[in-house]
């Protein structure tokens, strides 16, 4: 078939889960095979960087880029794929919001190296040797990408056409994207407007089938999941377990609540929300009855209630720190200190 479209899938600072997610579309892979030629997908295909570099601009129909931008190589390949591709999709939460690796944005390169190459319990490195971007070895010279001070999202380094959140994106969302591209290619159908987030516009709570207290919702105490046996039918928040469903975009099928565990927000914030954690904090303060009864609670009582959240960063920003407003605050504070 001469008219196959060309697709590429690349990973920046990711885990490979987005690549497995593409495999998880199972039999639909054979549809993709009929429609497209994979020019670059390092996990399973032998295309090399030099092959892509040699391709004309805009000769790849769609590039799926997963993983965050953690180093200079991630950025370089993102820019190259952008030039070579008609459509660039930020695939998965790391590309969209920084994801779990983005939690590193409260620290920096120096501290990461200190921990990884020096302080960790099994590391034996008395001279504190660290990876070098350029090094003379006896036989010649070798290079490594530069590890950046912070994690960036894909749209901080290139123009992104579509965003597909999820850690990883679900089969249903991927199928939506594959079908949209297939219809565009085979029938000339319009692509969605640029900037579209390929997911639901609702919140996770809208698609979660747990029973919620309808009026006068209130919790007195926050529990960790291991501290109580959560009722598998009732809203986890109503039971005092912090579930960040109220601030999180729907589209995953509420898999974690179905497994009797709270949402951790991998789909990112909803459309209306600028800051994922801020939105959840607001929902939580209302549940803890802080917002509505400020006058009745002393400052100490409010602090006591909120200090039950032992790790606000990991609780509210596990997937979205590089995209959050908070991250800028942390960065600015560090700069001032430094």
């Amino acid at each position: 078939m001469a008219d196959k479209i060309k697709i590429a899938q690349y990973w920046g600072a990711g885990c490979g889960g987005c690549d497995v997610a593409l495999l998880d579309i199972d039999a639909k892979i054979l549809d993709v095979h009929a429609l497209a030629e994979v020019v670059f997908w390092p996990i399973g295909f032998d295309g090399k960087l030099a092959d892509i570099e040699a391709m004309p601009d805009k000769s790849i129909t769609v590039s799926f880029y997963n993983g965050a931008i953690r180093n200079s190589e991630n950025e370089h390949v993102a820019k190259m794929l952008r030039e070579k591709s008609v459509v660039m999709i930020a695939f998965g939460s790391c590309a969209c919001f920084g994801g779990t690796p983005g939690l590193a944005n409260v620290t920096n390169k120096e501290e990461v190296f200190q921990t990884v190459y020096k302080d960790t319990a099994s590391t034996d490195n008395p001279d504190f040797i660290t990876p070098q971007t350029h090094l003379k070895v006896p036989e010649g010279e070798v290079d490594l990408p530069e590890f950046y001070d912070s994690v960036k999202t894909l749209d901080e380094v290139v123009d992104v056409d579509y965003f597909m959140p999820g850690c990883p994106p679900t089969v249903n969302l991927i199928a939506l994207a594959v079908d949209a591209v297939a219809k565009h290619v085979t029938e000339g159908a319009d692509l969605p407007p640029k900037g579209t987030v390929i997911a639901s516009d609702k919140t996770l709570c809208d698609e979660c089938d747990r029973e919620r207290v309808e009026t006068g919702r209130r919790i007195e105490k926050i529990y960790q999941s291991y501290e109580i046996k959560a009722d598998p039918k009732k809203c986890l928040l109503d039971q005092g377990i912090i579930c960040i469903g109220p601030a999180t975009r729907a589209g995953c099928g509420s898999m974690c609540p179905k497994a009797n565990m709270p949402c951790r927000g991998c789909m990112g914030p909803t459309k209306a929300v600028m800051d994922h954690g801020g939105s959840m904090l607001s929902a939580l303060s209302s549940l803890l009855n802080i917002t509505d009864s400020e006058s009745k609670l002393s400052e100490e009582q409010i602090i006591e209630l909120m200090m039950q959240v032992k790790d606000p960063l990991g609780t509210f920003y596990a997937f979205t720190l590089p995209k959050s407003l908070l991250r800028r605050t942390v960065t600015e504070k560090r700069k001032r200190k430094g």
Partner: protein
Amino acid sequence: MTHMSGPIINDTPTKTTEKKITIDPITRLEGHGKIEIFLNDQGNVANAYLQVPELRGFERFCIGRHVQELPVLTNRLCGVCPAAHHIASTKALDAVFNAEPTETAKKLRELFYMGQYTHSHIAHFYALAAPDFVLGPSAPANKKNVLGVVDAVGVEIGAEVIKHRSYGQKVQEIVGGRATHPCFGLPGGVSKQISEEERAQMEEMAKSCVEFAKFTVKLLHDVVLANQDYMDLILNQDAYYLETYYMGMVDKNNKTNFYDGDIRVVDQTGKEVEKFKPSEYLDVISEHVEPWTYMKMPFLKKVGWKGFTTGPSSGIYRVGPLGRINVCEGYTTPLAQAEYAALAKTVKDLGVTGPVHHTLAFHWARVIELQYATERMLELASDKSITSDDIRGVVNEPTEGVGICEAPRGTLIHHYASDKDGLCTKINMIVATTNNYAAINTSVNQAAKALIKNWEVSPGLLNKVEMAFRCYDPCNSCGTHALNGSPALEVNVRRADGSKLETLKNF
């Protein structure tokens, strides 16, 4: 498979004038990597480096997190074997909270984990390795992939591969809540009971997977072991052979176990030199740092780091399927045991005593393990007691603990310390592929030196160099986790008008 043409083993080299040959990125593995091969003045290989150009730093940013979140955070080290991290992490939480899991919880975790092995070993054998064996090491680059394999073996077999890898994922989803990035692990147990209907569904899928594994064993024999060209490649001691130590988990009878047991280390002759509990890992393993790569290189502490050399004086050891098959004395399930015996007989007939040092034997070991994982999955899914609601054990105050399991790619160690509030104060992880890194680099160097001579290079030869790392099924995503510390956080909670309501700090 009658329409299949024979694999293309060799191609014609051409003379290069470059003294540095770069393979970037190396492909059909998990994660990033690049190989630099340096030629000397005679056009022979002076040295080769497999560089891992990535680092995320989990050991840094997991500090300050609530330890109960680590099974879902450290999942994200690797999306190919998230279940391995989830299990090692949950077992570390068992230790941190001094919480003994219930029998039901242990069975559910292991069942879930056999789903992971089924998915991971099928994905590696068919999607990553098979192109080299079905199409051949020198087949055109744009054919050497899973779609090329499907074209060669036929859509019917392709559909069976897809179906059974998917069953592995489905079992993880049913038990673990999700296949990629599961969420069911809690100290002393699991979050979710399973229904009889789900159990019965998993039993059916497991039965089918056992049959598919039998088919895979046969395919390996028919396509690879029966082909003298491949046997010559596998037995090529100049290119694919390292005499190293081996490490893997065994049960009390020294049979392979992926979920729980002691860690056994044998030397180059097969003699046991270490057998340790998770909490003792720091007595056995240290990690070395090289300036030309982001990934660390573990070695046996008592033997020491002696560079990229092998033999009893070098602390380099191997893990994963080849490591496990060399440390174990067999399998607890009949089909896997039978195939293990077949491998043992083959190597004995070849005059090999002691461990199998042939690097490409990783593939055979992996297929034996696929058989074991599916059989064990069926045993556990057939056990009606797994639907019990007794899924949560008693949890105590958090302290410090180590959890170890065998990831598909090797021994996986998670070590956490917690303060009284449950916040992580210290974390160290030694990840499956990392254990193998020094050996992988040595293997690549060895293959390059044996295969590239007198300036002659070809795509097929370079792919044969890649085969030297590919058989380890390396996961460089896993290997470059590293990030700790106590990130300072200040959150200002504001009213709608922007005035400050409260400031939260964790410092």
